[in-house]
């Protein structure tokens, strides 16, 4: 890679959490050329986690989730909001805009995030995904109308939070999940089953091992037909079945795409081009594999790192954090640090599943690879710290027994 300290103009494509933190990092590291953030949404950067919680509940209005702070006013960042980038010419160092214009750069941050997968709903009203503020407000308007029943498709974290928020609004909820255990692949059977039970205890009609075959109705949804032959009458459907990274604008650019834009260990995609956040698949040296991580905290960390890496060029350091995220459901605070994939064993070392207040450790080989906490934020923070340095399973069990 050529030295990039001579960068004169940086464009950040994507004006959400990762892009904003990349821009801040450029300024904090002394870059004083023009920095332009291009955002497809018309809104100034905002915080997404409250979209499935406080904003959807109606407790917060959108102004509460602005990400920009007064400190950003001094950073001299240029925002081009409501503009979509449709193409990248790496050799000519320019971006094509949907409106027909071009934007030149010599340093580029790719932070376009991801878009939710949808069901084939025939364009019927009342069927929602939840990713953007506009998605949230459209869903909230439908919930305000007092639907008879809400069907949530997918019991991952977004679906689970939406189900919890809808119950909090006093709505009837059916949660449909194709897997036999919610989050079973990520968290293991016992822990996943416990999280599913939390929804049942809160009055959610939980249907596991069942897919949605069809979304039926007229102009608006009236029912979903399930793969077990059953049907659920409903006025609102919320689909939470994962996301697809926003890389269409990079097709034909020559950059490598593989369920995300491919970056090296330091988040570098090509000379003078870096990537961060949900869209970036980078080589995570700690785990020895290419990962894409969709978490809030990750977008901050990787956005910051990518901004620094753009300036550092050849001298950029690997980005190798322990992933961490949280999910709020009812009065439960669920947190996961580390990476559960490929775990050989799950053990509860603190509290109990029955209390719904516990720490579960995940073992791979002779090492602890992840810790899950339900309503145990303090201990989970300690495990998160220890995972950064690496923890032998035997030591972890000894320490947990002595705690």
């Amino acid at each position: 890679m050529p030295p990039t300290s001579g960068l004169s103009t940086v464009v950040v494509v994507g004006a959400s959490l990762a892009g904003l933190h990349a821009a801040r990092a450029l300024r904090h590291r002394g870059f004083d050329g023009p920095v332009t953030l291009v955002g497809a949404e018309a809104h100034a950067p905002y915080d997404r986690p409250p979209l499935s919680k406080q904003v959807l509940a109606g407790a917060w209005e959108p102004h509460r989730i602005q990400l920009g702070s007064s400190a950003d006013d001094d950073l001299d960042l240029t925002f081009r909001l409501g503009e979509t980038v449709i193409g990248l010419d790496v050799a000519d160092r320019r971006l094509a805009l949907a409106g027909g214009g071009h934007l030149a750069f010599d340093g580029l941050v790719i932070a376009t995030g991801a878009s939710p997968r949808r069901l084939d709903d025939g364009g019927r009203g009342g069927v929602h995904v939840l990713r953007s503020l506009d998605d949230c407000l459209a869903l909230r308007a439908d919930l305000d109308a007092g639907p008879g029943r809400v069907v949530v498709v997918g019991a991952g974290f977004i679906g689970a939070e939406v189900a919890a928020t809808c119950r909090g609004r006093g709505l009837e909820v059916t949660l449909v999940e194709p897997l036999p255990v919610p989050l079973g692949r990520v968290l293991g059977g016992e822990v996943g089953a416990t999280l599913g039970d939390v929804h049942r205890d809160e009055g959610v009609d939980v249907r596991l091992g069942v897919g949605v075959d069809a979304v039926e109705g007229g102009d608006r949804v009236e029912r979903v037909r399930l793969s077990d032959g059953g049907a659920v009458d409903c006025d609102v459907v919320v689909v939470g079945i994962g996301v697809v990274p926003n890389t269409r604008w990079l097709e034909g650019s020559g950059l490598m795409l593989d369920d995300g834009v491919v970056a090296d260990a330091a988040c570098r995609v090509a000379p003078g081009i870096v990537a961060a956040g949900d869209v970036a698949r980078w080589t995570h040296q700690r785990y020895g594999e290419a990962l894409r991580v969709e978490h809030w905290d990750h977008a901050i960390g990787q956005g910051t790192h990518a901004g620094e890496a753009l300036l550092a060029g050849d001298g950029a350091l690997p980005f190798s954090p322990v992933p961490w995220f949280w999910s709020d459901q009812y009065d439960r605070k669920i947190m996961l640090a580390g990476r559960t994939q490929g775990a050989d064993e799950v053990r509860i070392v603190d509290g109990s599943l029955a209390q719904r207040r516990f720490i579960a450790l995940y073992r791979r080989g002779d090492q602890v690879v992840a810790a899950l906490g339900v309503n145990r934020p303090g201990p989970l923070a300690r495990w998160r710290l220890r995972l950064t340095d690496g923890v032998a399973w035997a030591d972890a069990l000894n320490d947990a027994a002595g705690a």
Partner: protein
Amino acid sequence: MRVVVDYDLCESNAVCMSVAPEVFEVRDDDFLYVLQEQPPDDLRAKVEEAVVRCPKQAITLEA
């Protein structure tokens, strides 16, 4: 440097504790305790990181 926590915003996510355990501790009662309200300058980088990483933006630094 003085650490100020807005306890109306704080949800005890303990992110600050995993970034700067010398300064922040969420105890078994699930409340956040600030261990050093005026931490020494060598902890400044960590405390600033905790401010950024707080999901509720509940921590501020006063000069």
